[in-house]
């Protein structure tokens, strides 16, 4: 029952196992990792071992019996470890080295001590069969987990090799075999055939598996990017909603503010009308009242423009923004609120332009949040001031907004900025976290601290942005 020469088959197998892992290593150039290296390295060891087996009798005995046995075991251990790492359950290395050493000692003990070659072959084949079947099982798990046909093929083929190994062990036990695999009949041929199959399917399957994986990774990365994009969009929407909410809360005071110019317009118009009816006014007087009406109309439209520019949904823009201007515009926006709460703004000496790159509306939102928090904090304070300073330092622009209120409690200091943490009964707890994410988007930071108690105390919001490079101070 000799279909072919087993020795030649082993030599061919050796060559294949040297060639194919190399090919796989080259093909997987872009996906290389420790796992791939272990798999391909294991393949090379099998190849070298097979050639040593094929060189039977032309080299010293240890080189075609002991050494290949070690190489086979190590190679399959390497491949097992490769798959286990993929599954995230690697075996500890010292443990594996110890196990291999124990097997090696047993092996040499049987071979040289007992001189029982059949038992040695049985032992070694059993160990390798066990390793192969374990490998097949791992491959099968990967195939199941990742739904990869390639991994399943690897599993089938190593299952086949393992079974052939078991078959050899059985035939050895029945006394039908020879301790030297080359002198054996059917079981050796079955083994070498299955090994040939494994060389081809094992490597192509592995390449397929690795490529599958990288494709899936790319797909996942694309999906992640899409999700990030979506998150950013949602973030912008939340920020927009927050702006609208802020405006909603400001609307009462904005209404009052808008009412002022309207009152002036109505009264001036009625004065002019009465003057006209009674004929008491001359042209100059009429012009005066009409001028006042024009002026107040402009005042009203400025207020409306301020609201509109703040509420306009904007895709994030990137333009030079002067923080000093932003701060003053927002102070105007909350002026009425501050007025009513008897809060005074104190701006540090004008330091010229403070240019950063970013979206003026989003930056306004941060400042608005800070101002409104400050006004809220000052409700009970004796001294009611919001001190705003903006300075240039080391290519950064630092905007500091400080109130003279009671400051933040340690808990609030720790928690502030966590979404949904709030100390206000009506708050949503999103303000600072939105502000912080806007600051981050602008390459900046937002820090909350308390001022020194000797210095009067109070909370400080410090914003730090990269300055626009062509800043002219």
């Amino acid at each position, binding site marked *: 029952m000799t279909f072919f020469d087993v020795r030649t088959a082993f030599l061919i197998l050796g060559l294949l196992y040297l060639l194919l892992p190399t090919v796989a290593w080259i093909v997987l150039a872009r996906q290389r990792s420790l796992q791939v290296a272990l798999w391909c390295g294991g393949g090379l060891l099998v190849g070298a071992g097979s050639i040593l087996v094929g060189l039977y009798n032309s080299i010293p005995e240890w080189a075609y019996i002991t050494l290949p046995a070690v190489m086979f075991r190590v190679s399959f251990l390497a491949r097992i470890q490769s798959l286990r790492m993929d599954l995230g359950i690697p075996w500890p290395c010292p443990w594996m080295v110890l196990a291999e050493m124990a097997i090696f000692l047993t092996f040499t003990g049987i071979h040289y001590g007992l001189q029982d070659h059949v038992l040695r072959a049985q032992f070694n084949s059993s160990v390798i069969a066990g390793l192969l079947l374990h490998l097949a099982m791992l491959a099968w798990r990967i195939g199941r987990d990742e739904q990869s046909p390639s991994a399943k093929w690897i599993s089938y083929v190593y299952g086949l090799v393992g079974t052939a190994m078991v078959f050899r062990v059985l035939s050895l036990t029945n006394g039908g075999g020879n301790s030297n695999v080359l002198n054996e009949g059917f079981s050796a041929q079955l083994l070498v055939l299955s090994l040939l199959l494994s060389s081809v399917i094992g490597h192509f399957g592995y390449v397929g598996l690795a490529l599958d994986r990288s494709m899936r990774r790319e797909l996942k990365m694309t999906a992640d990017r899409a999700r990030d994009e979506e998150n950013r969009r949602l973030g912008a929407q939340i920020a927009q909603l927050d702006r609208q909410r802020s405006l909603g809360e400001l609307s009462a005071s904005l*209404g*009052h503010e808008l009412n002022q110019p309207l009152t*002036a317009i*109505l009264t001036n118009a009625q004065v002019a009308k009465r*003057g006209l009816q009674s004929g008491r006014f001359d042209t100059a007087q009429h012009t005066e009242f009409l001028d*006042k009406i024009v002026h107040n109309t402009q005042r009203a439209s400025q207020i409306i423009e301020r609201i509109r520019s703040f509420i306009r949904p904007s895709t994030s823009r990137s333009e030079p923004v002067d923080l000093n201007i932003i701060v003053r515009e927002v102070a105007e926006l909350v002026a009425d609120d501050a007025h009513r709460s008897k809060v005074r703004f104190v701006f540090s000496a004008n330091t010229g332009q403070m240019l950063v790159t970013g979206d003026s509306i989003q930056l306004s939102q941060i400042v608005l949040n800070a101002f409104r928090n400050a006004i809220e904090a000052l409700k009970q304070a004796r001294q009611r001031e919001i001190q705003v300073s903006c300075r240039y330092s080391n290519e950064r622009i630092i905007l500091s907004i400080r109130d003279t209120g009671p400051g933040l409690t340690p808990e609030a200091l720790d928690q502030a900025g966590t979404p949904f943490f709030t100390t206000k009964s009506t708050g949503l707890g999103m303000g600072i976290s939105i502000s912080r994410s806007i600051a981050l988007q602008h390459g900046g930071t937002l820090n909350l601290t308390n001022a020194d108690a000797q210095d009067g105390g109070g909370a400080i919001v410090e914003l730090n942005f990269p300055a626009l490079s062509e800043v002219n101070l």
Partner: protein
Amino acid sequence: MKTLKEYRSPITVFDRKLAEHCTRGRVVIIDDDEEILSALTALVEMEGYACETYVSALSYLQMLNYNRPCFPGPCCVLCDVKMPELGGLELQSRLAELDDTPVLLMSGASGAREAVSAFHAGALDFLIKPIDADTLLTAVDKALVVSVERYSQRVRKVTLAAQIATLTERERDIARRVAAGQTNPAIAEELGIALRTVKLHRQRAMEKIGAVKMKDLVRIADEGNL
């Protein structure tokens, strides 16, 4: 040393006009918005009233402290509710401690709560901005009328007190008894004096406090702590 004559400056047309306006009525307007202030002033002055303007309630109070004007004419205060430092409602309560000047409050469509507390504190009217000229002028008119009434009442009280002070102890006693409804014989008997003497004292007392009939005496007794 200069004589008083040298300090005296001649009366100008403007002075005469101001005096004339003051006799028609003086309106104190307080609003922190200068545009509104000037528009309201123009409207009120056009109606021939004298006008004083202040950008804050505090500055008005300070003026009252240092330089209380004593224009005899009617006067009212028109004040915005929402102002920094001192709001209209607070000003109203402080003014109430000082004198009885009628106060008109104005506000931009603020809540009913403010209006209610304003009326409780004795505001004459609560005007919602933007204010129609007719509404405003009617309210000012009414407030000035109230001012005149309060003024004449005050004057009456002062005169009455002076008149009552001229009564002798006996005259006052008898006038009080008469106002309380006692008859002349009853008084004579109670005091142990002649009926004729009672009639004489009664006659004199009524003449001194300007009461012609019995009902005048009763009214004066009610008003003037006889």
